């Protein structure tokens, strides 16, 4: 499952005073099976980019290829099998809890599978599996999604996407508004899904998440791809120009080095490896 953008532009409200170009001639190859972070300031075109991958919007210019599916500005070139694409590409929107509507949790989770043509039993089984993955047990199945807490609602909504077992999982700010424990659980869930071979595309402003989970970082700036790199390389640069913040871990390392501690940067991945590096560092 590779995703390839070729000269993609997207313009909102064409030919009106509200006209606004969200993507400008984007060329991008997203590698298969990686944990990819998509970063950039508010309004840099991140949401527009991911909606193009799921064919929720059609590019104004250029084309996006998702495996054999083509989402092109040219109507003749465009693929017809949208449901097939939706099965392959799962998109978890920001605040997904607002999309719940069924009477029971299990029905809501099974909704996507049923839409894509699974039988009722099959959909229910997939729903139960997905609910187990996000950590909701059988006692939740028959409950109404509207009586759950905010964190539980979000888990149900995420399960609704996972039940379709996508090959590419796109998540937009999944930890916004969650408490630290819930955000850690959510991110661990996405990491374990990534380990099963799913390409994960994470849209976020939280550089700590990027440094902790991402393998590839795509930086968007003003509708253009500013950089495709690794977190390690990105955080060595000056991030102010993209309105990004250096993660706590990298800032700590920088300050320690400035104080004269000779740290082996390559070995530092998290707090534990940092502690180890400090212990072994030569003054």
């Amino acid at each position: 499952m590779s995703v390839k953008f070729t000269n993609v532009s997207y313009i909102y409200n064409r030919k009106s005073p509200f006209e606004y170009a969200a993507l400008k001639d984007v060329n991008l190859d997203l590698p298969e099976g990686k944990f990819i972070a998509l970063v950039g300031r508010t309004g840099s075109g991140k949401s527009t980019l991911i909606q193009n991958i799921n064919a929720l919007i059609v590019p104004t210019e250029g084309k996006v290829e998702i495996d054999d599916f083509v989402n092109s500005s040219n109507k003749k070139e465009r693929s017809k099998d949208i449901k097939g694409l939706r099965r392959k590409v799962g998109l978890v929107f920001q605040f997904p809890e607002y999309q719940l509507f069924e009477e029971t949790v299990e029905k809501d989770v099974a909704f996507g599978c049923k839409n894509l043509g699974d039988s009722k039993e099959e959909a229910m089984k997939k729903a139960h599996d997905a609910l187990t993955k996000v950590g909701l047990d059988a006692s939740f199945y028959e409950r109404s999604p509207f009586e759950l807490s905010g964190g539980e609602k979000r888990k149900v909504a995420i399960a609704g996407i996972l039940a379709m077992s996508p090959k590419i999982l796109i998540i937009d700010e999944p930890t916004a508004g969650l408490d630290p424990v819930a955000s850690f659980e959510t991110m661990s869930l996405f990491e374990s899904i990534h380990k099963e071979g799913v390409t994960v595309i994470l849209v976020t402003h939280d550089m700590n998440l990027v440094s902790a989970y991402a393998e590839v970082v795509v930086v968007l700036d003003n509708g253009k791809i500013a950089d495709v790199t690794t977190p390690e390389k990105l955080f060595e640069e000056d991030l102010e120009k993209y309105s990004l913040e250096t993660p706590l871990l990298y800032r700590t390392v920088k300050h320690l080095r400035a104080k004269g501690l000779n740290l082996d940067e390559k070995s530092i991945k998290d707090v534990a490896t940092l502690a180890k590096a400090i212990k072994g560092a030569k003054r």
Partner: protein
Amino acid sequence: MNSFVMGRYVPYDSFIHRMDARAKIFSLILLMVAVFMGYSSWAMTFTMAGLAFIVILVLLMASHVGLGRLLKSLSSLWFMAIFLLVIYILVPHTSNWVAFYIGSYAIYWDSILEAAKILVRLILMIAITMVLTASTKPLDMTDAFEWFLAPLKWIGFPAHELAMILSIALRFIPTILEDVSRIMKAQASRGVDFEHGHILAKAKAMVSLIVPLFVSSFVRSEELADAMECRGYDPKAKRTKYRIEKFHIADLFETLFCAGFLALFIYVSVTNFNCYEAWWGLSVK
């Protein structure tokens, strides 16, 4: 989704945009009355409608709405046209001016023309409303609305509250439309198809849109009520305004122009004036 945007305010800088909202609403009401006048003959009816159309078209162009947007918003009117035609064909007529026969059933010109008349009036009405909504900020519109209702405050009518409700409703149309498109996209990525499929599937698709929409709207309204209360909103309090609408001389002239226009229409209607007979001596129906 674009069909919803038909009546949206579009920020241009035309003389219609700059016009005082109160004067604009009043002038447009005058025009609407003019459109609904009755005349002595069919020929006059359509001639006057044509005259009104030219004036309204100029207003449309001046307010940057353009004929394209008008036509787009009229695209669903064909259903209305057929409906009207059927009704007027079934209604009995006094005239015996037969257009043609279907079998032995006579179709009168009067039915066709009557339906056409109503349709033309509807189109003109829609065009006038579009000029107003496209060129007036919703807030200015509610301010004007409150100003018109002000005399009713003397008899205890809640004019301010009503204007507030109206302005909140208008303010939240784009927000709710944004919600609609967000939820539609979220459900579409769960495989919902809002455009194709049989009626039952479509109904189910609508449920998946409407339920979340209601939930988020209720949450939003509660939050708004709390926020207003936190800032000490009191509907009874006397308040000042940030922008004070000024009535300019130009507004007066524009209103007078519309009034003159209406006067012309009233004159033609009341005197049963027929320009074809009076000027060219033609006898037309």
